[in-house]
């Protein structure tokens, strides 16, 4: 029975676990509940992904109302892959979180913190799973609202977390509202909220001005959530001042989910065949992506705080996503999705490593990294591997991403873009070089007894680090999954409305 209903249980189990955390008094119990829910989601996402690859699209009708009238959870190769990404990062972050949260959150608030964490997690899973555009908005807001709270929880360490959360709230809400406006126009045109149905009904309306306006609103809305270059202002502070674990979770999943929604809008609801979209891709996304890569990377060079360096690097990586999308080809889309997965793994791993440093030193400025290479060898080794991956050294997953991005650029014949991609990854060399050099080659300023982080933090972090290497050496798994996802999005958006269903 569980297997038949996995599509919904995947989301609803974390959502059930969240109120249980409210009721549980002890932080340890709350953590246990959260960890169980996370692990369940992880296992479930893998099973679902396998099911989708074997048997095709899964469509789950909530309340037994058939789509397009009822809300449908619709899993194809694309979103079941994103589901794996989200639940993997989420589960690892929750497992890792106990000690880190003990240090950074007051004890009374910890069960509520886990509640918010689970809500955020469930929201992201919901956004990824649902096939209904408005339901998507609802889940998006569940995840966004809880992430505002989570970011603000960093105020224990630094009061700037509050203003960061406030800015995030303003821009996030504006983004979500933009999405709703766009959705309203599409609804007015088509009378449906089911994304697959919408896509079918839109065909032939490409000339409609309303449709274009709707497209613009939805794209800008998601652009804000994804922190596309000129709309990234909320991100650096939110990442820098949030509790470590929240930063790792958000960096690994939040922008990925937003990217997924963007892909849905671009390739499922709309299609690059529409002139306004292909123009948007080429004349808006391409330059913005490039600008994002360079501007954010250069800003990252001058940051004094490691979390901020990584945050700006995340904005730069959003630029890469955008580049992949802007190629409007299966190759580009695949590169984008490969990068989505890879970046989630490596960036979360990096932020978790920073979390270990914060746990021991209480700070994450580059100065506090001095000499840590000798004092926290395992943490810093994970950090170095993550950094190498971000630079794109072969045998790490970052290399695979770059490879496919450049290949996609060459397929389109866009030489300068290919050059820009490698040049951008070089900048990563310099901003990571600074941190790693400080960690290994500079003597630590104080002789306090800083030791290695506890095993309960190291083990989950190293799970990500090892997958960072293993999937870099053998990329068959991720790449074929991403190819299936890209093809599902690009080639076959309208196929098979009534898919095989549950009972």
């Amino acid at each position: 029975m569980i297997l038949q209903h996995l599509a919904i249980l995947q989301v609803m189990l974390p959502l059930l676990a969240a109120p249980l955390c409210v009721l549980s008094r002890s932080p340890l119990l709350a953590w246990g509940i959260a960890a169980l829910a996370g692990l369940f989601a992880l296992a479930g996402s893998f099973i679902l992904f396998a099911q989708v690859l074997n048997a095709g699209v899964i469509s789950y009708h909530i309340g037994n109302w058939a789509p397009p009238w009822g809300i449908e959870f619709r899993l194809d190769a694309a979103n079941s892959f994103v589901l794996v990404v989200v639940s993997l990062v989420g589960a690892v972050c929750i497992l890792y979180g106990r000690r880190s949260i003990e240090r950074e959150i007051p004890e009374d608030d910890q069960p509520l913190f886990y509640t918010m964490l689970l809500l955020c997690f469930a929201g992201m899973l919901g956004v990824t799973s649902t096939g209904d555009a408005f339901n998507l908005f609802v889940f998006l807001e569940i995840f966004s609202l809880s992430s505002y709270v989570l970011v603000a929880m960093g105020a224990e360490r630094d009061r700037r977390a509050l203003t960061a959360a406030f800015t995030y709230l303003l821009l996030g809400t504006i983004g979500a509202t933009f999405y709703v406006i766009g959705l309203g126009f599409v609804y007015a045109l088509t009378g449906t909220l089911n994304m697959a149905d919408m896509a079918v009904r839109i065909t032939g309306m490409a000339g409609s001005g309303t449709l274009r306006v709707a497209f613009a609103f939805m794209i800008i809305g998601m652009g804000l959530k994804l922190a596309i270059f000129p709309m990234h202002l909320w991100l650096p502070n939110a990442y820098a001042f949030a509790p470590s674990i929240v930063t790792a979770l958000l960096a690994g999943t939040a922008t990925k989910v937003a990217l997924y929604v963007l892909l849905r809008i671009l390739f499922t609801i709309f299609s690059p065949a529409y002139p306004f979209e292909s123009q948007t891709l080429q004349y808006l996304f391409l330059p913005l992506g490039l600008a994002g890569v360079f501007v954010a990377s250069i800003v990252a060079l001058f940051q004094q705080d490691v979390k901020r360096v990584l945050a700006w690097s995340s904005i730069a990586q959003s630029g890469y996503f955008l580049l992949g999308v802007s190629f409007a080809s299966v190759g580009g889309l695949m590169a984008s999705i490969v990068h989505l997965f890879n970046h989630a793994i490596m960036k979360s791993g990096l932020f978790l490593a920073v979390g270990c440093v914060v746990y021991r030193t209480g700070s994450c400025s580059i100065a506090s990294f001095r000499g840590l290479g000798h004092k926290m060898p395992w943490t810093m080794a994970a950090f170095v591997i993550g950094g190498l991956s971000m630079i794109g050294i072969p045998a790490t997953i970052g290399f695979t991403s770059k490879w496919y991005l450049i290949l996609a650029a060459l397929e389109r014949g866009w030489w300068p873009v290919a050059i820009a991609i490698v040049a951008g990854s070089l900048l990563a060399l310099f901003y990571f070089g600074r941190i790693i050099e400080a960690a290994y080659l500079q003597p630590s300023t104080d002789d306090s007894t800083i030791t290695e982080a506890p095993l309960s933090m190291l083990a989950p972090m190293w799970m990500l680090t090892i997958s960072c290497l293993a999937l870099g050496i053998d990329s068959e798994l991720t790449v074929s999954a991403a190819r299936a996802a890209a093809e599902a999005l690009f080639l076959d958006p309208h196929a098979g409305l009534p898919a095989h269903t549950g009972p």
Partner: protein
Amino acid sequence: MKHHIILRIGAKLLIPLIMLLALYVQFHGDYGPGGGFQAGVIFASAFILYGLVFGLGELRRVAPLPILMKLMAAGWLIYIGTGYLGLALGGMYLDYNILSSDPVAGQHLGIFLIELAVGITVASTMLAIYQCFNAHQSGEMTENE
């Protein structure tokens, strides 16, 4: 405001009526206009009025924050649980038809449970928000989460 006798009498007269209205809106929700959201807010407003007139201390005596937190979670659990009930009975998630032998009765039951869950959560949440903000303003509480 202890000395404002008119306010106190007025409030005492009004509060039961407000609550009654809330209940009406709540239980009428599956037939006509109304439902858990509206009813929850109305219900909470009765308490808020009580708090305004008789003071925060009184309000916290009749609706303590820890209880409100538990109620919030409880409403939430009822909602999710109704969904799982559908699963347990062999239907889809949130499948109301399956809840009773007659699908129409099942729909009634299902929506009733859902609205009840929403009502409880909304009422307790509104009250909790009010209490937190109010407590903060009068400096009676430093931590408001």
